[in-house]
């Protein structure tokens, strides 16, 4: 009785018009879009893009400041007293590697600090999983987003190189997919850390024990090939090393090293990292 009374009271001043059934998103949409489903992660990419656009300046300076300063300090500062390396000036030698490192930093920081904020503080993932999207869409959206940011950082670095007197060859265009691939790998790596993190401090370990060593020992600042054997083998196994080599090869169009193995190896480890990120994030999100 009580409820019937209430129903009468609720007037008609505010009503939501029911949309005609054929335009209702849930029916019509799902009928035609089984194929489109694979691209659902784009909507998550788009969400991140919308947020990023608002902080564009801070984001760019934060990501590019370090590699550019390194280029200046090491290339100009130290480089004047360092002899040519592999037939390149020291500045030319380190420039492509610093492009690769910009991709790494940008991608890995996005899917650690950025993704962890969305996972915990902002509960963005929770909100997304209440829509038709699933964990796979979420993981792909985040990784492709991180890779896109990484690629952008790499491209801006490449565009800045002429300012330092380094002019890339046309082969540099072939480097772009490689940088994107590397972005995928480091995004996935970051997301793995996010899936395991209990708090933000966890990422300090990640940056100081993983990212910084990779930055220093992946052949950006010294040629790995001239190291003694066990060390050389070890350094060549690091995920950034083949990317740095490929960056140098494509940047100057000098194919002095085999590229196929580096390329296939990078695809393989990226695939594994993406799978592991998906597995771990699913374990964290779906109890």
């Amino acid at each position, binding site marked *: 009785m*009580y*409820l019937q009374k*209430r*129903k009468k*009271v*609720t007037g008609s001043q*505010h*009503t*939501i*018009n*029911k*949309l005609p059934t054929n*335009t*209702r*998103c*849930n029916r019509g*949409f*799902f009928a035609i*879009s089984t194929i*489109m*489903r694979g691209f*659902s992660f784009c*909507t*998550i990419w*788009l*969400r991140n893009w*919308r*947020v990023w656009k*608002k*902080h564009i300046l801070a984001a760019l300076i934060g990501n590019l400041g370090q590699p550019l300063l390194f280029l200046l300090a090491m290339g100009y500062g130290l480089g004047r007293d360092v002899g040519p390396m592999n037939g390149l000036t020291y500045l030319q030698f380190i420039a492509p590697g610093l492009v690769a490192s910009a991709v790494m930093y940008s991608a890995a920081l996005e899917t650690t600090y950025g993704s962890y904020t969305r996972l915990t503080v*902002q*509960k*963005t993932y*929770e*909100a*997304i*999983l*209440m*829509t*038709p*999207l*699933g964990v796979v869409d979420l993981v792909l959206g985040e990784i492709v987003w991180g890779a896109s940011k990484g690629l952008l950082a790499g491209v801006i670095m490449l565009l800045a190189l002429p300012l330092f007197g380094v002019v890339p060859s046309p082969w540099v265009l072939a480097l772009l997919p490689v940088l994107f691939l590397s972005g995928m790998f480091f995004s996935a790596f970051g997301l793995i850390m996010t899936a395991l993190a209990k708090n933000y401090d966890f990422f300090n370990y990640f940056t100081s024990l993983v990212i910084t060593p990779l930055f220093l020992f992946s052949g950006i600042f010294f040629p790995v090939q001239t190291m003694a054997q066990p060390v050389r083998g070890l350094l060549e196994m690091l995920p950034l090393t083949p990317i740095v080599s490929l960056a140098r090869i494509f940047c100057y169009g000098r194919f002095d090293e085999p590229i196929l193995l580096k390329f296939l190896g990078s695809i393989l480890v990226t695939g594994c990292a993406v799978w592991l990120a998906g597995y771990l994030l699913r374990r964290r*999100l*779906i*109890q």
Partner: protein
Amino acid sequence: MGEGKAGIGYNGIMRQTIPQPESMPDVPGSQTIVSVTGLSKRFGERLVVDNISFVIQRGQCVGFLGPNGAGKTTCINMLLGLVEKSAGKIRVFDLEAPRFHREIKARIGVVPQADSLDPDLSVEENLRTYAGYFRMPRRLARKRVDELLHFFALHNRREEIIEHLSGGQRRRLLLARALLNEPELLILDEPTIGLDPQARHLIWERLAILQAQGTTMLLTSHYLDEVARLSQQVLILDHGHVVVQGEPRQLITDLVGLEVFEVEGTPAELEAMGASFAQCNARLERVGDKLYVYAREDCSRLTKVMDTSGSWVRRPANLEDLFIQLTGRSLRES
């Protein structure tokens, strides 16, 4: 149950023989929206949800009640496929969960307990982005966002950043977001938690309108007046079990009584009072220096006796009495 008047468990035969003009009109397409049988969830050693069964019919609002840690949110998350069930069957819109979680979630709207709005985006951007997750065509999304912003009185705040919104405005925006896909089932997890009375009333009013339009709802709340206001069915959970389910008014009269006297006084006074209430069909409960009398019949003749004590209040029995009776007074801190 043999009495025949009970709301719980009266059987189909009665329905056929006795015409029931006061029952809800049979809406065409009336059907079961959610059907859950033998649902259980185990987290390690802990059995959080233990063999729960219930159904939600189209157009109903079902109140999910229970102390903290009773398993309400876990249950909801299992419907959405956010928690994997350990045993049992869930069917939503006649689709098996979690196998068809995409199809199911496309037709559900959720107002989560915790604010999950995008703090960097404006009110309108929040809704547009969320509509994107449902893959709503842009034009349709724009129209729908407009309607919802008006419906929830947020239209002059559309450019506002979430940070600048009040608690009530955020909750309304969460509700608007949950309604974007025109859900056939709206899940409300504590929709008015932490709001001032004005904000709560505004939300109740909007929910009542949605209900009048036939939206099916699943509501959890610790504000039992809210549940009594909105729900036609309640389901009380405790320690993962369904303690009772049925129509709230009926459950209250059947299990608690008609009215409640709350009497204050010295222990001796209350002792004497208790003795005199023996003449009336009532259940007594002593809590500290208070005596609660749950009267199953008209006990007004005893008000004279009560006048001798310090102070007393007489009020109708409500959902809170039922809740406390069934789940006890001890605190649940999980």
